[in-house]
């Protein structure tokens, strides 16, 4: 009896929190379809005489139309920029990490220990420390205001090498590799047709991790990029606020929603791999 009561309390408590967590999303969704006047008066959907007491006819697409057609901050362009930056970076980073991790996990060579130590040491550096010197370096290399200057430094994260090293160490037996070598397989072929398929979950997870990190990255593109046409969403959205003097709540919510929707879709597709990959570093022993 007590048990059932406790369970009911738990369920109510959890769903209360879940609703609280989702509230900002729902509020944003409603806000993005409202005009400014309705935003001021109602918390969610405008009240009226329509179905469920909602004034459906007062809802509007204008906010979305505005952010896609605004000549200064075009969200469609920025969205494409974000997709490009995030996808290219995550592909390169995943490839480089998998290669590096494989080498450190399954080869025996003289510099193996020092390089492994280097990977671990690199993980100790807080990224903000490198911000100023990297800016100066990109200035010298003439890479300011280019995507190269943004993608290259992120294309081989030590964290990824470390994760792949762990995954390959744990998941792949040496015998398979040796057998392939005896069969006359080249090293490249072994990597692409044996190793990569076997670490598929880690690949999916790490692609998602780097994609997400690059998508949500603000400080580096903010510092490196100058031309508004090149801005990814994270930088564009901050500029958007200036473009409207912070008056347009509907546009703010619509642009935020548009900026997080692609990530949400990708996540829904990859969530299982992503979540297990994310926690693998902490949990796997």
């Amino acid at each position: 009896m007590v048990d059932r009561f406790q369970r009911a309390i738990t369920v109510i408590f959890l769903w209360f929190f879940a609703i609280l967590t989702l509230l900002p999303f729902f509020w944003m969704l409603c806000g993005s379809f409202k005009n400014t006047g309705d935003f001021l008066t109602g918390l969610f959907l405008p009240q009226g005489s329509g179905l469920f007491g909602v004034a459906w006819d007062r809802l509007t697409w204008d906010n979305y139309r505005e952010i896609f057609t605004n000549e200064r901050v075009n969200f469609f362009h920025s969205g494409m920029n974000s997709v490009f930056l995030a996808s290219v970076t995550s592909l390169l980073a995943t490839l480089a990490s998998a290669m590096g991790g494989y080498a450190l996990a399954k080869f025996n060579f003289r510099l193996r220990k020092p390089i492994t130590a280097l990977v671990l040491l690199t993980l100790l550096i807080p990224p903000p420390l490198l911000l100023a010197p990297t800016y100066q370096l990109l200035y010298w290399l003439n890479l300011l205001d280019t995507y190269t200057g943004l993608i290259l430094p992120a294309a081989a994260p030590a964290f990824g090498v470390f994760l792949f090293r762990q995954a390959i160490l744990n998941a792949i037996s040496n015998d398979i590799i040796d057998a392939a070598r005896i069969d006359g397989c080249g090293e490249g072929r072994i990597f692409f047709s044996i190793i990569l398929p076997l670490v598929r979950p880690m690949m999916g997870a790490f692609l998602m991790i780097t994609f997400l990190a690059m998508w949500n990255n603000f400080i580096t593109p903010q510092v490196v990029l100058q031309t508004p046409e090149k801005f990814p969403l994270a930088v564009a959205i901050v500029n958007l606020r200036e473009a409207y003097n912070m008056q347009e709540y509907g546009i703010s919510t619509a642009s935020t929603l548009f900026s997080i929707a692609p990530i949400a879709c990708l996540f829904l597709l990859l969530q299982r791999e992503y979540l297990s990959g994310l926690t693998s570093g902490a949990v796997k022993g």
Partner: protein
Amino acid sequence: MAQYRLHNPLAPYLFLSPFLLIIGVFVAYPLLQSVNLAFHQTFGPGFQRFVYLDNFFNLLQDPLFWKALRNTLTYAVATLFIQMPLALGLALLLNQPWLRGRTFLRLIFFSPALVGPVFVGFLSTIVFAGRVGLLNRVLNGLFGFNPDYAWLQNHVMGALIIAGLWMYVGFNMIFFLAALQNVNSDLLDAARIDGAKAWQRFNHVILPAIRPVFGFVVLLSLIGSFQLFELPFVLLNQTAGPDYQGLTIVMYLYLNGFEIGDLGYASAIGWVLAVILIVPTALQRFYFGRKEED
């Protein structure tokens, strides 16, 4: 360990070459240069002047730096003491086998972690606005809270902590949930049969099993908290807020390096941050390192 002699001796270096090249150019070199910069005052990357150790001496006397440090610490501590118990509590509740819709709830709680701090910061300007903001409306509806309360003028840190909660509780919960899979259920059943109370079971069975992950999550969130930047920066419209209430270490680094143009001072701040973080980071990595031996 077995010795492999079958492969080409150059193969591992080829596999490692992209990584080594990039680390060399974009990590090792900037790291050395950041030491060099810390002894200079610059105006943009072009003008620089050698100032001996002045950057560090100034930093020690700089009230804004201490303010930034204090703010960052406040956020980190609040995060630790509010977020961790909440995340663990949620994980424990969600781990109940009889609970329906666990996967769904897990996704819901995790979802805010997908939204980058920039976007949360951007959204938060309206969430925390007086009168029209979501928070004040909800608080007003629930508790009759003053609907005009200006969070972003009076209590920036409160707003940051609330936004941080929304973003990261679910994120940390995921780690705890994963750790809870390691809890020996036979042991738990045995304890229950022996009449152990819930908190006793938690203390003696669950906690020991998840302790390593707990340490990992604490350190991870500590390191993350110390690098807080985007959330307050965007929330406060690219400023530190009234009375520098939202100034954090990394924001001070950014403002000095990229608003004022003094890359030297920024590097000095970066080094102080690195020194502060080296202890927990090393602990975390040591933990990592210990795990992979077996």
